[in-house]
């Protein structure tokens, strides 16, 4: 009887313990070698590329940014988005937020910078209100399904997250706030998010980085 692999429904699965080898030393390009184990038997790993490189090369990651700082709207009855990120209904993707960048330029009232969302559906926006979206692979051919709007408004949106605060009416210093959401918030089709504040006198630049995942 053959000892070769058995195919079909009666196939028996072979079991094997996969080993790696604890060692140090250089492996030349194109050479095969055992995967490295650390002293405590963990598999030695290293990053092969930047964190978002695969999404960029796969044309799944996009960025959009305000071209100049805007006053953040205070959360209330009519809350305007200086820059809203929306996933239009019927887009066929989920928008997985990776990073939001914030640069506070001025503030005359202390308060919190927040992300808000609500139940109003995000309609496909008319052309004049759209902010440019670029693929992270600049010059590449990515086609975003998300839309960035500079004219979106929401009634009494609710606060999702508070990534930054202004603790004085006259803050000083220079600071880049990079909020690494890492996919912890995602927009299903029809939903949206934007940056607002608990007070009306915080002026800031905003940028979004996200990945689009096909449904």
């Amino acid at each position, binding site marked *: 009887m053959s000892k070769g692999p058995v195919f079909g429904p009666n196939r028996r699965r072979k079991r094997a313990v996969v080993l790696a080898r604890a060692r140090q030393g250089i492996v030349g390009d194109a050479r095969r070698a055992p995967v490295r184990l650390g002293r405590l038997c963990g598999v030695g790993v290293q990053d092969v590329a930047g*964190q978002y490189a695969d999404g960029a090369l796969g044309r799944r990651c996009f960025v959009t940014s305000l071209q100049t700082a805007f006053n953040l709207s205070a959360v209330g009855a009519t809350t305007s988005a200086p820059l809203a990120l929306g996933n239009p209904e019927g887009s066929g993707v989920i928008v997985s937020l990776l990073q939001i960048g914030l640069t506070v330029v001025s503030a005359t009232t202390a308060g919190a910078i927040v992300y808000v969302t609500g139940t109003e559906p995000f309609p496909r926006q008319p052309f004049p209100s759209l902010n440019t979206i670029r693929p992270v692979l600049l010059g590449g051919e990515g086609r975003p399904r998300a839309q960035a709007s500079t004219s979106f408004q929401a009634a009494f949106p609710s606060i999702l997250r508070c990534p930054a605060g202004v603790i004085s009416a006259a803050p000083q210093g220079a600071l880049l706030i990079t909020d690494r959401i890492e996919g912890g918030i995602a927009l299903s089709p029809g939903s949206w998010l934007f940056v607002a504040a608990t007070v009306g006198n915080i002026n800031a630049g905003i940028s979004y980085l996200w990945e689009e995942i096909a449904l």
Partner: protein
Amino acid sequence: MILEGKAGQRNVSDNAEDALRLGRYGGLAVMDAHGRYMDAVIRGNVFLASQQAAAAFGTALTLSAVTLTLYNPTGSGKILVLLQTTLSIATSTLAGQVVYAVNDTAGQAVPSATTALTIRNALLGAGNGSVMRAFSAATLPAIPQAARVLAGIISTAPTNVHSIVDDVAGGLCLYPGSILTVQGITTNATGIIAAMWEEVVP
């Protein structure tokens, strides 16, 4: 069977098979396929809760919690795995700290006199409901104990813009019956706290 890989950069087309890549020193070369929390979010297991207005964190740990409080009800069948919290401080005139404070005594009473906060699925517009409870005010069964620091306020007259995003990454988890709140010690800071967590079956 020993697991081998091949060193050096190669480009692989979709559907092609190739050897695992090794780094120059034999480490297994890895990369992120997506955002760190994307898979859990798309599966509908990650949730968000936030205060909707600034509140005082208090000058001492107290059983009268008036900021974000998370409660994993007894019998929920799930564990709350805290992933990230964000904090923005609006005012403070006393130096001090803001901490995570917990009540984790087996068989303790449930929080009373609560004001509920909405819990949203992190996949906005879709997803499962949470089995946890979030409050903007609650009476705890006892004075909670600090379990982890969240922010230090170093001056009686702070003047900066700040970003406090604590990547807890599962470093605090709530077993059913446990309570976590955020409170101040010494400081009289006011602000907003928001949390992101995953719910997993033990």
